[in-house]
């Protein structure tokens, strides 16, 4: 890089960690303001949101700036924090800042009625969480990375258990903490292998270390496991459907939209940046696991009847899609197909960014519904579009985006990914060539089922008739909440309408990781990866056509029907009485999926007796992996601890004998 560009962006990384410091000051300041409830919501959260916007700005500049690094003498003596901001970190900073700005603005409204004491703590954890995530992105040595990673895990644990008086929430929090730490141990081992016995834990020395394929594979597998546990890769996904419903909605939005992406960041960082060998089968493994995760997630999303749990499973699905893209990138990269790797990597990053926006939007949308109705079960909701039109329409944007409908953003990334799949027949390995079309079909299936899930989500919650009379008193979301949702919805729309510009911004990241960039064969209006003859997409034109056709139809229908309207009772199909209970329910809507994929799940039904005076029908579709994998492990652990418990007699003599035997053994051992 030239001298001028160095001076043009002086020490961008300093601005980034100054932002972290700002959040920390806000968080700890909130502890001092604990009694001032109004101040906490209407001052601290907006200030925090400004910090998020600032981070996004730093990230945007960082995408084009040369990497900048700094060494901060904090932490243990002789172990300073190395921080570095390169294009990859900058991209994820944009993601973090962009999504958390909307969520934090939303939080101003969401938390306004919370009790003062817990609120002060929540504000502290919230800002620590944001700061921890940013530090994860900036860390340039394993020590700083792990410290930040743990800050992120612990602060989010405390955020999840905000309502810790409810036993189920404590249980969910514990499960999250447990899996987060199992993953963290794997990461610790991964970094231990990466430093290769030099004792130097900076990322710079890791980049230079030469690794044999065996140890590189071990590093990769540990990274996949450790980051996978955080991201929700099957079979480490079990904490997501528990923790997300337990957490307050803005927290769910941040965890799902942003925190899961830090795991993707880590995986990219370790695989493409820190390791200097990549092996083909890594990609195949990631692709297979990603597809499994995507399908598993979407199938379970389809049968959920709790709206936040549904969204949590949908997050698993999206992480699966991202990981599948990651696997495909690795396959292309190791096969020497740089241009295709760049295409897939672009799709991956794009989808990560999109998911941050639309999943954040949907989660905060459920938060407004939850506040307005006090209900998370979809069986008790319905018809809310009449009482909360803002929430409904904004959520609709998110639902359409996640369903992958043009011209919104979900379409672009999934389309890019499918393009990459379609271009595969050129790989040198014949087996992969045969299997990849199946993988493409799975991605398409997952995308289609995601649309199905969103029809269910939106239809049951917002359309139809209210399933509960109390819903007539549902109130619209407050203005800060609406503003937050508008920001996120605008993000979904803009990312969908201007893909060519977004891809230009992504180019430095893609070049950093894969050595090539995606060449856009189209122009500013039109996106055409690889070549314009094969496939191209012009969202603005598409949008204009759709809008014009809609408008024309609307006008035409109004014109033609004007004056010829005959008002009469509609034919009631022989059912003169219709009430809300006759509508399709969440369970009913998911029934076909449950029938088809019953082998994946364990269905527990409770059928009423014919003579039951108050008949009740319930059915729950449970995760089979929980029973097949986690319960045996839990049983094994408790068996081992029972065996260890036998050592405890409660008799002092026995304890003395233990230490006596140890002493004798050690003495013999030493003098040997």
């Amino acid at each position, binding site marked *: 890089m030239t001298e001028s560009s160095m001076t043009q962006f002086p020490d961008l990384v300093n601005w980034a960690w100054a932002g972290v410091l700002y959040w920390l000051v806000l968080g700890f300041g909130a502890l001092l303001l604990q009694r001032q409830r109004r101040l906490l919501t209407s001052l601290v959260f907006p200030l925090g949101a400004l910090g998020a916007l600032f981070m996004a700005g730093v990230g945007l500049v960082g995408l084009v700036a040369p990497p900048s690094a700094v060494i901060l003498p904090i932490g243990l003596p002789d172990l300073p924090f190395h921080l570095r901001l390169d294009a990859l970190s900058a991209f994820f900073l944009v993601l973090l800042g962009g999504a958390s700005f909307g969520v934090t603005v939303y939080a101003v409204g969401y938390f306004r009625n919370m009790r003062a004491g817990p609120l002060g703590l929540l504000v502290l954890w919230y800002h620590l969480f944001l700061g921890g995530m940013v530090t994860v992105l900036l860390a340039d040595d394993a020590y700083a990375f792990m410290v930040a990673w743990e800050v992120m895990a612990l602060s989010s644990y405390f955020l999840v258990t905000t309502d810790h008086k409810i036993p189920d929430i404590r249980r969910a929090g514990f499960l999250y903490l447990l899996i987060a730490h199992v993953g963290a141990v794997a990461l610790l081992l991964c970094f231990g292998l990466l430093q290769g016995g030099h004792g130097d834990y900076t990322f710079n020395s890791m980049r230079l270390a030469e690794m044999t394929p065996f140890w590189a594979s071990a590093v990769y597998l540990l990274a996949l496991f450790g980051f996978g546990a955080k991201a929700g890769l099957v079979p480490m996904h079990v904490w997501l459907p528990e923790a997300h419903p337990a957490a307050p909605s803005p927290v769910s939005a941040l965890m799902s939209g942003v925190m899961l992406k830090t795991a993707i960041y880590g995986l990219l960082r370790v695989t493409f940046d820190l390791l200097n060998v990549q092996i083909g089968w890594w990609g195949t493994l990631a692709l297979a696991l990603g597809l499994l995760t995507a399908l598993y997630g979407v199938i379970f999303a389809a049968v959920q009847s709790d709206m936040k749990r549904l969204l949590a499973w949908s997050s698993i699905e999206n992480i699966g899609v991202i990981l599948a893209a990651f696997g495909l990138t690795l396959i292309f990269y190791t096969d020497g197909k740089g241009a295709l790797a760049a295409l897939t990597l672009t799709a991956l990053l794009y989808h990560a960014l999109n998911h941050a926006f639309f999943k954040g939007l949907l989660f905060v949308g459920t938060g407004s519904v939850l506040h307005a109705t006090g209900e998370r079960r979809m069986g008790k909701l319905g018809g809310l579009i009449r009482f909360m039109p803002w929430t409904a329409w904004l959520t609709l944007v998110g639902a359409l985006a996640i369903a992958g409908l043009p011209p919104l953003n979900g379409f672009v990334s999934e389309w890019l990914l499918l393009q990459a799949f379609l271009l595969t027949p050129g790989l040198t390995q014949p087996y992969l060539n045969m299997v990849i079309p199946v993988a493409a079909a799975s991605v398409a299936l997952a995308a289609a089922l995601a649309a199905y899930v969103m029809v269910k989500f939106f239809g049951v919650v917002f359309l139809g008739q209210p399933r509960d009379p109390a819903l007539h008193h549902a109130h619209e979301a407050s203005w800060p909440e609406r503003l937050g949702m508008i920001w996120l919805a605008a993000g979904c729309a803009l990312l969908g309408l201007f893909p060519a510009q977004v891809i230009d911004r992504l180019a430095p990241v893609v070049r950093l990781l894969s050595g090539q960039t995606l060449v856009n064969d189209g122009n500013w209006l039109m996106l055409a990866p690889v070549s314009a003859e094969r496939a191209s997409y012009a969202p603005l034109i598409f949008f204009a056509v759709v809008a014009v056709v809609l408008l024309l139809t609307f006008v035409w229908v109004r014109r033609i029907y004007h004056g010829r309207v005959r008002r009469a009772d509609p034919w009631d199909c022989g059912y003169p009485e219709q009430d809300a209970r006759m509508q399709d329910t969440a369970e009913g809507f998911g029934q076909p999926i449950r029938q088809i994929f019953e082998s994946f799940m364990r269905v527990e039904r409770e059928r009423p007796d014919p003579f039951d005076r108050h008949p009740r029908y319930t059915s729950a579709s449970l995760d089979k992996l929980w029973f097949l994998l986690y319960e045996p492990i839990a049983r094994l652990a408790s068996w081992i601890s029972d065996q260890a418990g036998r050592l*405890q*007699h*409660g*008799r*002092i*003599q026995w304890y*003395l*004998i233990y230490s*006596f035997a140890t*002493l*004798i053994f050690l*003495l*013999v051992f030493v*003098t040997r």
Partner: protein
Amino acid sequence: MSLTYHLQVVNLLAALLLLISFAMLSQRRIIGLVTLFAWQGAALALSTAIVAWSTGQHHLYYSAGLTLILKVIAMPWFFYRLVKKLDVDREVEPMINIPTTMLIGIVLVIFAFNLALPISQMSGTVTRSTLGIAMACVLLAFLMMITRRKAITQVIGFLAMENGLFFAATSASYGMPLVVEMGVALDVLVGVFVLGIFFFQIRETFDSLDLKHMEKLKEH
């Protein structure tokens, strides 16, 4: 010449220490145990003083003085009062009968001598030959803690073990630095007082000082 003469005395005292350790193992009454403990402390103080005199290590005089004050006078007196107050002079049958305990003790002594052989060759002190005895004292005191049931005997066993360690330090390297010894002495003193308070609490809770009642505290 005088060095060998002094060494003879130290060796004699070391043998006395070992003998007292065995005597403690076989002693059933607590009052007798306390007396033996006082004698052990006296032998220890005397041997330390002789080592100090013969080698010119002046800080060992302080150690000897500390031992004399704490382990020969203060603690035995404290234990006499405690035993009288708690009225627990009669020791019940130990967990393993006395002859078997003695046999195990002999095995331990042989083990300790074996163990000390390579270590004492490395040491450069004139008293290194007594290291085996010192280690044997530690192990025998440990054995006493294991085989007794009353809380007080446990504490005396613990203190006897400390005696053995002290002796080992003197014989292998002319004692530990004075600061360390002062620290250990203070620890032992405080420990004894805390345990003395515990005795009263245990008695109040279980109406006995027998440790088998403590099994009830186990978590089920």
